[in-house]
């Protein structure tokens, strides 16, 4: 039997878009929109924001870098000058002011003119500084008037109480030998050899390194 379908073309079942296809198309459109949207958000939103931040940060960095470079130059200047100051201080600490030392030694030996306690004098004075340790050795061959050993002891006591005594690392013990010079009044005297070893003004470099 022949069936005649008189419905317009668009109403005929065979020519309609199927709901499946429609749903698929809709779903696909949605997925495409979502993925493109996501890309848009990531690319233009997040990345764009970061690029804007980058521009600002770059500008800020350029400005601060300039000041930072100024600081670097300042610091270089400071190190130059400080290095010289440090060197001066290093050398300065290693020096003993000998005019002061000898002046103080003269005071001790003169003992305010009190010849009763001791009346000493020296034939020579030799000062040697060890270049490595910077310690100093002083040799003073001398005499004390009279024949009383106690006067040598008094001289040693006064040296031990002198302003420079703190710098003495070691000292020869009191000792002496009686001498007589008939051309002098009184003729008797005690000859002695005084040796003073002074501490180094600064710790020797090699010792410091070993200590570290």
């Amino acid at each position, binding site marked *: 039997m022949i069936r005649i379908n008189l419905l317009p073309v668009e109403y005929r079942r065979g020519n309609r878009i199927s709901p499946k*296809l429609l749903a*698929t198309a809709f779903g*696909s459109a949605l*997925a*495409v929109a979502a*993925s493109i949207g996501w*890309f848009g958000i*990531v690319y233009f939103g997040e*990345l764009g924001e*970061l*690029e804007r*931040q*980058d521009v600002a*940060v770059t500008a800020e960095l350029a400005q*601060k*870098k300039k*000041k*930072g470079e*100024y*600081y670097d*130059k*300042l610091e*270089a200047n*400071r190190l*130059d*000058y400080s*290095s*010289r*100051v440090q*060197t*001066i201080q290093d*050398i300065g600490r290693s020096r003993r*002011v*000998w*005019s*002061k030392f*000898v*002046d103080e*030694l003269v*005071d001790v*030996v*003169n003992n*305010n*003119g009190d010849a009763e306690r001791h*009346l*000493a*004098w*020296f*034939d*020579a*004075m030799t*000062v*040697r500084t060890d270049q490595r340790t910077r310690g100093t050795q002083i040799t003073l061959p001398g005499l004390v*008037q009279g024949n009383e050993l106690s006067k040598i002891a008094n001289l040693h006591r006064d040296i031990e109480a002198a302003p420079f005594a703190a710098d003495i690392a070691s000292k020869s013990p009191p000792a002496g030998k009686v001498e007589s*010079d*008939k*051309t*002098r*009044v009184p003729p008797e*005297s005690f000859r002695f050899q005084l040796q003073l070893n002074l501490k180094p003004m600064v710790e020797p470099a090699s010792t410091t390194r070993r200590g570290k």
Partner: protein
Amino acid sequence: MARLNEKQKLFAVGGVALGICAVACGGVYWAQGLIDEMKATLERKRQDIAAAEAKIAKIPATEKEVIILRENLDEYVKILPADQGLNDLTTMMNQFQQSSGIQVTAFTPGKPAKAPGKNGPKFSRIEYQYDMNATLWQFLKFINSIENYERFVSITDFSIQHAGGRDAETRDGDQVHQIRLTMETYTYDGKSTGQDVEIPDYGDKKQELREEIFKRLQAIRIDKYDHRGSRGRRDIFVDPREREGRSDGPPIEEQRAIMDRYLGELQRLRGIAQKLRKPDLTIFDVFTFERELKEGIEKLELAVNEVNQKQQISAASLRLRWVKEVCEPLADMKSTGGTKDPRGQSDPYLSAAEMQQLIDSMRQLSTDGDLEAADARFEAISPRLLVPEADPRYALAVTAKALHVRVKTAMEFKTLDLKIQGVLVNHDGGRSGVLLNGETYEEGDYINDELMLRRVEEEQVWFVFRGLTLIRTL
């Protein structure tokens, strides 16, 4: 599309959509990579900013430090120069030799110092050896000059050899010794990293830091010592015992007597200085004591110098006492003037009460006719009357000065040659007259440009001299 069946269409639509989604996801993945990279870059830049900010925060302190160091650089260069500058050093040594009086016999450079290693000190040593003959005091003055020199010089070794014997050379009464000395100076080897950076507003900042700059300059200065000569001490390299049968200078008893005499005089001056410190003194007492003390110090100083020149105190046991008990206290008294003004030194002028006291005493002395004493009182303290106009004591100072002008005028009037040989007093209201230096003058007549006859009485004649009325009695 019409040729595709439904299944094919479904696949086509789905496939295209899937493809687009895949591309979009790929794009997201790629963008995420860019984002990560950008974040890392940003993080780095932020770290750089933080580092720069940390540096920027240090700029004020570093600028301050650099300004202080730079301003003191000249001083550092003097102490530790970068160049050897040995010609200048040698010239300076020569000046020290001359000022100290040592006699140099050799000045030789020592062994050249090894160049410092990479991690060694940033300075090189230059060594010199001196051979000289000098007295102990000359030697001490010489090494003191070296040690106080602006360039850093260190004395490392020295030896003093007593050149004894009866005929040993002497200078200024002191024996000469043989001396050998080794000294070192230094040059800076540190390399500069660049030019001085330009600091904005340098002048203003320097001005703000001037105290700190000065303080730091003091701190960098190396140890110095002020050697003050022998001060009566004996040379410790000379046998102080007297030679048998020979003594230097006057006998010891005489030296003791000289010493006692000067100690007594010094004690008298101390007594005057003591009186000066009493708080209840009048300004005129102060003047008298000050003058007495000043004259006493000057006189004693002359006498002490004479004793020193003649070396009258030569005994070793007395020389130190002489310096410590006579010379130094006298010098001290001279430097302080022996005066201790109880009012302190903040106000250089007389107080109002003292000015009034001066005015009253000048008036009293003028009335008593002791014009010289009145003048002397004013002259003695006139520098303390120079008060500024704004000072409330100004009026009193002006009064005292005006009084002094009158005293001086009266003193000059006294010296005028006025011989009054007779007077004619007219009681009837007419003008009286006087026979003066052989000539007659009537009241109101001018004797000269400065002197006018004002009134004539039986017992006295009134004159006007430089505007001041003065009376001569007959």
